[in-house]
Structure formats: structure tokens, C-alpha cells
């Protein structure tokens, strides 16, 4: 039984703010994307879908798209794998559990900008601890191949804790008797993991994937501070390219078009996962 009183005045302030600061700008950005607008010269002219047409011939856009897909696919895969392993590890009982959980949260809590600066120093060719530890002289952030992977690795470090926290919460819901029963029936650890834990964890894994894929796809701070999109645009993602077009060349029309593309892609990603999730729940 529900309370039957109207509550619209409790909700309206939030909805008004959300509409003004997110929905209205979203409509505005679509309008901007149909314009040729240069902020400094006060040029502003309607050009229809011209900006969208130019995307197809923009090699830098296609490169940024490719980088974003590579970054998203690799980092989300690694985060999930590592996060699962760590969650299973933490879910056992051991001493100092609270302390370990707090330590695991550290990378999550550190500002992304700070973590990018930390890793920039770790990756330093001459004085970085990474090269010192592995006894190499690799120019991590100076070579196109290593730079994007270095960015992926930093992101994995930063965001795996979030995955671990959610998956641990999911694991705790699974009754311990279930494992014990399976073990008594002669199932090995691996069989218990793949046949019992993974299927039961599936909804939580999907939720984790939604959040992580969306975040990775719109990545900005981490890479912008670590490499600025270089070397030779090898780490330039869609958000970074859009930001540069908007605020470095002040082409607000085309920059907004790029922003709309990011929005449409994240929308498509959400719809894809939410359909998977609702299917999974019904089964």
C-alpha cells in the first residue's frame, strides 16, 4: 500500500534544475552542431547537416574514434578481469579486511588529474620508477604504440576499485552454502566459479559494464593531462578532439557536432546494455 499524498512539489525543484542545466544545453548543442560558428569572429551561420557530412572526410575524427574504441574495449576488459579476480580474493575472510578494502578504494578516490600526473612521473623515460624497476629505457609517453597502452593501464589502475566494490557487493549476496554444496558434490574451484558464481553475478557484471563502458568512452581528464592527446594524436579520444576544436580553435559549430556524436554513441551503448540487462533478468 502506498501513501496517497501528492508529492510533486518535492520533485519539481530538482527536475527544473536538471532540465535547465542538462536538457536545455543538450537541445542547444544540437542546434549549435547545425551551425558554422566561430566564437572569436562572431560568425554564426546555419549550415544544416554540413558539419555531420564533413565528419566522414575528417581523418582526425576517424582516428579519434578508433582510439576511443581501442581505449574503451581494452580498458573495460582488463578492469573487469582484474576486478573479478580482486573481488573473489577480497570476498574470502582474512585479517585486516577493512584496511585492505580502504586501500583498494584509494585509486578511486584520487582525483583523475592527480593520478594522471602521478603516472606521468612514473612513466618518465629517464627518472621514472617503471623503467627503473623493469630495467628498460622505454619512452612510454613518447611513442604512439606505448602511449595509448600506458593510458589504458593508468585507467585500469584508477577504475578497477569501482569494479571491485560493486562485484564484492554482488558476491556477498550469493549464499556461502551454495559454494559449499557444490564443493561437496565434487566441483573444483574453477567449476564453482564458472558455473555458479559467474551466472549469479551476471546482472551485477552488466551494471558494472554499463558504468565503465560509458565512462571509458567519454574519457577526457585522464588522457588530456597524461599526454594531451599526443604523440601525433595517437591518444586523442573523441572527447579530447571535441574539446580542442571547441576551446582551442573556438569552432563551436563543428566542435558541437563532435560532442553530439559522443552523446549519440553513449546513448547507443546505454540502450544496448539496458536491453541485455532486461533480457537477462527475465531469463
Amino acid at each position, binding site marked *: 500500500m502506498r*501513501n*496517497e*499524498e*501528492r*508529492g*510533486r*512539489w*518535492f*520533485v519539481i*525543484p*530538482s*527536475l527544473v*534544475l*536538471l532540465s535547465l*542545466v*542538462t536538457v*536545455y*544545453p543538450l537541445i*542547444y*548543442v544540437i542546434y549549435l552542431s547545425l551551425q558554422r560558428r566561430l566564437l572569436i569572429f562572431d560568425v554564426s551561420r546555419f549550415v544544416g547537416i554540413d558539419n555531420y557530412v564533413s565528419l566522414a572526410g575528417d581523418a582526425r575524427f576517424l582516428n579519434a574514434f578508433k582510439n576511443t574504441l581501442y581505449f574503451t574495449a581494452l580498458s573495460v576488459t582488463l578492469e573487469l578481469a582484474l576486478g573479478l579476480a580482486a573481488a573473489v580474493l*577480497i570476498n574470502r575472510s582474512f585479517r585486516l579486511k*577493512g584496511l585492505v578494502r*580502504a*586501500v*583498494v578504494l584509494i*585509486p578511486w*578516490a*584520487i*582525483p*583523475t*588529474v*592527480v593520478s*594522471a*600526473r*602521478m603516472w606521468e*612521473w*612514473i612513466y*618518465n623515460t*629517464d*627518472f621514472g*620508477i617503471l623503467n627503473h624497476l623493469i630495467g628498460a629505457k622505454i619512452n612510454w609517453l613518447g611513442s604512439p604504440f606505448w602511449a595509448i597502452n600506458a593510458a589504458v593501464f593508468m585507467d585500469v*589502475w584508477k577504475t578497477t*576499485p*569501482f569494479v571491485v*566494490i*560493486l562485484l564484492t557487493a*554482488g558476491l556477498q549476496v550469493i549464499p556461502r552454502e551454495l559454494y559449499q554444496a557444490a564443493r561437496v558434490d565434487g566441483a573444483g574451484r574453477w567449476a564453482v566459479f564458472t558455473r555458479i558464481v559467474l551466472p549469479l553475478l551476471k546482472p*551485477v557484471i552488466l551494471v558494472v559494464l554499463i558504468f565503465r563502458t560509458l565512462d571509458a568512452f*567519454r574519457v*577526457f*581528464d585522464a588522457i*588530456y593531462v597524461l599526454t594531451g592527446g599526443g604523440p601525433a594524436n595517437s591518444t586523442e579520444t573523441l572527447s579530447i578532439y571535441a*574539446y580542442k576544436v*571547441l576551446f582551442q580553435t573556438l569552432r563551436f559549430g563543428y*566542435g*558541437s557536432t563532435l*560532442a*553530439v556524436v559522443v*552523446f549519440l554513441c*553513449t546513448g547507443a551503448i546505454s540502450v544496448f546494455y539496458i536491453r541485455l540487462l532486461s533480457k537477462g533478468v527475465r531469463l
Partner: protein
Amino acid sequence: MLIALLTLYCSGPLLWQLVTSLKPDTELTRLPPILPESPTLGNYVSVFEGHPFPRIILNSAVVAASTTVLSLILGSLCAFGLAKLRIGGKGLILGFVLSVSMFPPIATVSPLYIIIRALGLRDTLTALIITYTTFSLPLSIWVLTNFFREIPDEIYRAARVDGCTPFQVFYKIMLPLAAPGIFATAILVFIFSWNEFLFALTFTSTVASRTIPVGIALFPGLHEVPWGDIAAASVVVTIPLIILVFAFQKRIIEGLTAGSIRG
């Protein structure tokens, strides 16, 4: 053993930054030794003396605190309405709130910049507070709705029978009962606003409104990157977060999971 490895992996980079921050400039360009031979607080002194750093920290504190308060006020009102009262299109509202939380910030940054410039709010803390409050609202609403739902409806009805108006029930009875949830949300919103970068980078142009992430990203270096100073600054701004994490890890985990799993 594996646990120790995991702990080291998570804390290692920060510890390395701490070690770096204690090294004098001459030792920064030498490896080994890993640990500083003559540890010094010189980098910390120069961060606080040479740069507008205290002002930047103050800006961040004001923005994060104001955002947290505003987001909690609006978010708890909305969440209470959604969890306990009759509202048309409830599912639609929750869906709307959820989809807003999935908006990529880059998609709204150009129009918001134009709007903020037109309102004369460029380079002000107000612009950041309004933006952060809005972008943290979905999280507040989502987490708090879950917490309010767990409070039995009978409590609400009993208070109404005793003559409380719905608003009185909200702040006299429901808010105290939902205190753990409010607290968890507050930490999450605070950390979000303390760490946000894209909007801060775009809307601010001078130290009048620069926040910590922008300050650290644009750390002044005339000829070479001042790694010692950056390390010291990083440690200083991370300390409050580490304290939050160690003191309230249970609440943080509750908030994170209530925000994403139960929903």
C-alpha cells in the same frame, strides 16, 4: 600474499608520489636510490609560498562544500517525494534522472559555456557550483531514493495522523532516519566535486575560481616540469580524500552500491 600484492598495487603509485615529494630537486633526477637520501619538506614549502595554491584549495573547498549541501537538499526532497508520495509518472522521472547521469559532460560543455558567459558567470565559483549540483543530482536522487524506500511507509502515515505536514514528516522524521544514506551521498558528491576537471577547466580562467584539478593540470613550469612541487601538491590535495576513505569506507561502499546495484 596475493592480498599484499593487491594492496601494494593500489597504494604504490601514491606512495611513490609521497617519496618523490620528499626528495630535494637534485635527487629527483637520480635513480637509485629509491628512497630520498636527505628528505626535505622544501617542495611543500615552495608549493605554498610560490603559487596561489592556498587560494585554489579554498576555492575547491567552497565549491565542494556548497555543491554537497545544495545537492543533498534538492536530492533528498526529490528522493523523499519519489519514495514516499504519489507522483504521476514516477518511473518516467526515475528513468529521466538515470539517463541524465549518463550524459557525457563534453556534450553539454559548449552550450553551458555560452550560457555562463552570457550570464556573466564566467570565472566564478557560482558557475561551478550550479553545474556540479546539477550533475551530482542524479546520484543523490538515486542513492537517497533507495535509502528512503527502506524506511517503512507506516512511519510516514503515523506521523501524518499525528498532525505533521508532509514537509514536517520529511525533515523531522525521515531525514534523521535516512542519516546514514545522506552521509554516504554527501561523501560521494563531495569527492565528485573535489575532483571534477572538464567544467572547471572550461569555466575558470584565473585563480579567482580555479580549482585543484585545474591548478594541478596547469602547474606552472617555465622551463621544466617541477616534479617535486607537483608531487607535494598531489599529496596535499589527496590527503583529505584518503582520510575520507579510511574513516568512512563502509559508507562509501554502501553509497556506491546503493547508487548502482539496487536500482
